[in-house]
Every structure is written in C-alpha cells, then in structure tokens.
C-alpha cells in the first residue's frame, strides 16, 4: 500500500479543503511552499539538527519488562516520545512548521490546543526561533489543564480562552481559523494534529513520521503489533505511516469515554459518520441533522469529534484497525504502567497502553507489541486524583 502525497489533497474520499474563500490563497501558498521545502536538503538538515539538539531525538524504545511480566503475554515495547522536550511528540511537528513559517517570512504564529501540549510545543518552537505565538484554547480546557496555560505564558505566548460552543478543542480550532481569516496575510496557522484542510494532514504526518521511522530502525524485527492513541491522530499517523507496508498489525485507539454505546465518548472512527468539519471530509461525531456532537474523554487531548482524514482512509481500506477503550480502562492502565515501570503516561497515551494490555494476554510470549507513549502524564495527575476520589470502587487504590 502506497499513499505518499494525496492527489487533490484527498486520501480516497477523505480530506480535501473545505475552507472559506478568504483562506484559499493562504492554503495555496502554504501548499506550494511546503511541497518545495519537503525535499529541500537545507531545510531537512536544519530541522534534523533541531530535533536532535533541541527536542532530544532519537527517543529510546524501551522494553517494558515489568509490565510485560505483569500482563503475561507478548513483549511490550514503549516508544518513548514522553522523553522529548516539552514532554510529548508535539514538538516534532511544531519545530517543522515553525521553521517553514519562518522561511515563508511569517512572524505571527497562531495555534489551537486541547490538553495544552501542542500549545506548549508551539510556544517553545516560537521562542527558540524568534516568532510571536498566540494560542487558542477552549475555556473548559484552560481550567482542566491550567498548568499548561501558565507554561505557555511563561514561554512568551499569549493564550486566548475560547468561550464559544462546547469550549473545548473543536472550538479552539474554529477560533484559530477565524483569526486566520482575519489576519491571513501576516499570520501562519500552526495546526497541531493531522487534521484540517490539505496540506495540513500531509504536513503533520510527514513531520511526525520520524516516530515510525525510528521504530523501524530500533526494533530488530518488525513488531507483530503497533498501537497508538488517536484523537486528531498525529502521533498515530506518525507511528503508523512508515509501517504501513510491513506485516505489522496496526491498531489505533480512540477515546471510548463512558462507552461508545453512550453519547459520552470521542470515537468518530468507531461510532461516527462521514462529514465535513474544519476543512476536511472525515468521520465525525454528529447528530441526525449534521450538527457536531459534544464529545467526552477523560483526556483533553483526545476530546475531539473528528479525526485526521488519512486515518479515515486507513480504516476504510482495512489496513488499520480502530478500537476504543473507556475512561475506566484508561485509569487502570495509567496506574499499572506507573506502578510497574515508574513511568507516568499522559492519559492520551494510556489509551494505547490499555489496549496493549488487553491484546498482549492473547498473544505469544515470542511476539512483540510497540506502543507509542506519546506524552508524559505530569499534566494529568490532578485529573487522575479527582477521578480516583470519585470512583472509590476502582480496584487499584493508592
């Protein structure tokens, strides 16, 4: 299976550029510049060096022997994106795009953020490259991730709390797009996930593909299974893309919230319907009229009603399997990993861990699973604490 650069910006039926006309010239300019720079040696060299010296690449692949022993089954390996500067994979993309923005002569950068990880990574990249950053964040998220708000401010970024709609990630994207429409000439929109109009899904996938490329190099043989969590899907597509043409079983894990049979989840690939949002055609959580549904997840970073179009395509092509795990399973996995390995995962990444625990039991001991640990969980400890206080029945108490 070869995907490469999507023709007319589409992965099969998915993707495209459903955008207000005012953005058309900006999107065209972006596409032209990106396609040029994509194969530019000096750009690659500069970005490659920043990824090593500034971000801390390559990240290790770690054999989680205690977790493997506790679960009993296939060997579980962790791709340690949590060890990157800023504590998540987001920096791979923000350095790439900020460098591109700089080469395009744009001085003002805007971005959206959910959990705050992309906002922090944007603020860091902008500080280091001398660019001005303004971050849109849903009001609900500014409360549940307030530490990240202050981190962004410390890094010199201006944070706008978005109070429209559901006041979460999707509304932050709406507001960033409105800003871009208004300031289209001076501003670069640095999207944080593999979503949005073409060329964003392509660009974000390319910048995140470093994860999968390293996995391929670091594992002695191709793993039997590869797992990553999927919100918009940037760490997942970065993990999966270089492994698409191998024999590895590939699994993306969505946020099942209180269960995909309830309305309280964020699993459009598992329980959504095709539609158009944020410039792309993809699977969406929506009601009978096509209104976008409010979503729920314990992790702010996965709390999004859509998903990157390349994932929608990979689902339809049956190359990647998409599953959902519930908040309860996530907390359990969070605690197991923390206790057995001394690694506190982001709640987003704990979704992938939860599924790895489920399937490794059914696999042979000689087999292997690679889980992308997309971020560290320091930002989430208050949420976990609150959850455990409210859910006293949870088996794993402190």
């Amino acid at each position, binding site marked *: 299976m070869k995907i490469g650069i999507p023709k007319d*910006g589409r992965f099969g039926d998915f993707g495209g550029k*459903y955008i207000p*006309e005012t953005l058309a010239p900006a999107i065209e300019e972006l596409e032209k510049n990106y396609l040029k720079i994509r194969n530019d040696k000096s750009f690659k060299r500069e970005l490659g060096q920043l990824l090593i010296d500034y971000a801390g690449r390559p990240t290790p692949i770690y054999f989680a022997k205690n977790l493997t022993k506790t679960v009993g089954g296939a060997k579980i390996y962790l791709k340690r994106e949590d060890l990157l500067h800023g504590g998540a994979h987001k920096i791979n993309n923000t350095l790439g795009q900020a460098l591109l923005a700089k080469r395009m002569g744009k001085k003002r950068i805007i971005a959206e953020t959910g959990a705050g990880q992309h906002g922090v990574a944007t603020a860091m990249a902008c500080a280091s490259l001398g660019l001005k950053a303004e971050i849109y964040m849903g009001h609900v998220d500014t409360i549940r991730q307030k530490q990240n708000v202050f981190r962004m401010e410390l890094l010199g970024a201006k944070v706008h709390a978005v109070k*429209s709609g559901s006041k979460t990630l*999707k509304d932050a994207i709406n507001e960033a797009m*409105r800003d871009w*429409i208004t300031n289209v000439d001076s501003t670069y929109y640095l999207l944080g996930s593999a979503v949005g109009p073409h060329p964003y899904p392509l660009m974000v996938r390319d910048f995140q593909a470093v994860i999968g490329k390293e996995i391929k190099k670091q594992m002695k043989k191709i793993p039997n299974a590869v797992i990553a969590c999927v919100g918009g899907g940037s760490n997942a597509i970065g993990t999966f893309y270089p492994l698409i043409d191998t024999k590895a079983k590939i699994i993306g894990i969505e946020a099942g919230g209180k269960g995909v049979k309830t309305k309280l989840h964020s699993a459009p690939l598992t329980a959504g319907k095709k*539609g158009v949002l944020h410039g792309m055609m993809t699977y969406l959580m*929506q009601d009978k009229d096509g*209104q976008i549904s409010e979503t729920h997840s314990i992790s702010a970073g996965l709390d999004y009603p859509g998903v990157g179009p390349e994932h929608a395509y990979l689902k339809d092509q049956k190359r990647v399997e998409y599953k959902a795990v519930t908040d309860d399973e996530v907390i359990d996995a969070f605690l197991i990993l923390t206790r057995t390995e001394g690694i506190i995962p982001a709640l987003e990444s704990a979704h992938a861990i939860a599924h790895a625990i489920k399937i490794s039991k059914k696999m042979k001991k000689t087999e292997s699973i690679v889980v992308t640990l997309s971020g560290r969980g320091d930002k989430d400890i208050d949420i976990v604490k609150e959850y455990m206080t409210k859910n006293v029945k949870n088996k794993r108490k402190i």
Partner: protein
Amino acid sequence: MSRIKEKFNQLRTKKESALISYIMAGYPSEKSTLAAVRGLIQGGTDIIELGFPFSDPIADGPTIQKASTESLNSGTKIDNFFSIVKKIRKESEIPLVLMTYTNILYNQTYQKFISRAKQAGIDGLILPDMAIEESKEYVKAAKKIGMDTIFLVSPNTEKDRLKQIIKSTSGFLYMVAVFGTTGVQTKIHKYTIDALKNTKNAAKGKIPVGVGFGISTEKDVQKYVSSGADAVIVGSANIKIIENTPANKVQTRIATFTKKLKSKTR
C-alpha cells in the same frame, strides 16, 4: 427562470440594486423569525437570506455565532427550518436563499437535501465552507434540481480562480467585503472597492455581484451601490435588532430599518 434571476431582471429595468437581508432561522424562536420576515418584506427588501444554524460556524463573527448557538439550543432542526420556509411561501413569493455549512447538506446527501429545500421553496444556497475545488458533486446536484449555487469570493481571490468560481455560480456572486468573519465593521476599505470593481469586470454583467460582511448602515449601502454593487447584503445588523427588541416589536423595527437601507439602493 429562478426567482432570484427574475428579481435581478426587474431591478435592472428600474435601475436599482438589490437589498438582501439575512436573519437566523429559529433565533430566538420560530415566531420571531416569521415576524422578522414580515418586517423585511414590509420594509421592501428584495431577497431574504435565511441562516440555518451550524454548531461550528467558522466564517461567522460573534453576533451570528451567538444567534446560531441560541437557535440550536431552542431546538431548531432541519424539519422546523423547512416548515418555516413553507409558511413564508404561503405569504410571499420573495426569493429565499439558505445560508448554512457544507456538513448540513452532506449529512443527508447533496441530492436529497437540495430536493427537500427546493420543494420547501428555497431558491438558492450559500455555503461559506464550500470551496470551488470540492464543489463538483454539489453543483451537479443543484443544477439538476434547479437550485441556484451562490459562491463567495474574497478581495484576495485571484483572477483565474475568480473566473472558475463565476462559472459555477448562479443567482448572484457573493463578494466578501473584508478579511474577516461576518459582523459589523466601522470602515469601508479601499481594497474592498477595488475588489468590487475587479469582480464586476470578471462577472461581465452575466451574473450580479453582491457585497456582504460588515455592512450595517445606510451610508455603507449607499457607498457600495454607488461603487457598482448589484446587491448589498446585511446580516449581523438585523440580528442585533432582533436581539435587542421585544418580540412584539420585532416586525415594525425590522421594517423601519429595512426601509431606510432599501431607500439607498435606488
């Protein structure tokens, strides 16, 4: 001939430009929507643009965003919307244009949605997130059913693209006046007037050019009409009146405001 085309033909013989008035359906209620529509007709508007709310209106500024949210919260569904349209049709033959976002149509399939809209009495569609590149299936379905497809252009739309958009447009061409979202502006920019001239040239008299976004006063209307606009579109200003007026006075206040604006299109 479509109601929209007929209207522009009539206006041309009278040497008038069109006033197009936008309101959000179901904001704050179905009743006030009908009152506002009656006010608009009474005030002499030429075309009514009815918004159907979408949960994520990226091209809209705060006023219409708020109206969308409140309309949705008050329970506006597609079925209510079409029943409002049918009620208007019982009273008037005024051209009716629906403005909403692509997903609302795509959700039911373009074909099915456009058929329903046509049947209810809608004459044209405006989808601010429908880019020309993605519009093939939509335009095909609309053409078949006899629905006008009103595309938007922006002051930064390049010449070749403008030509391409004009080819797919029927009814009228909607020129966005500003870099920004819908809402009240205080100033008319030179770049807008220049863009209006370029757009008119590209349209070659084959399709009327309307200007919208940020138009709220008689002075604005006069300026755009004297600069060659075939139509001016007023939206957020109507929403603000509805927002600040008790329900029983909506019709008269909207009528008074509309009459003043309309007088500047002659």
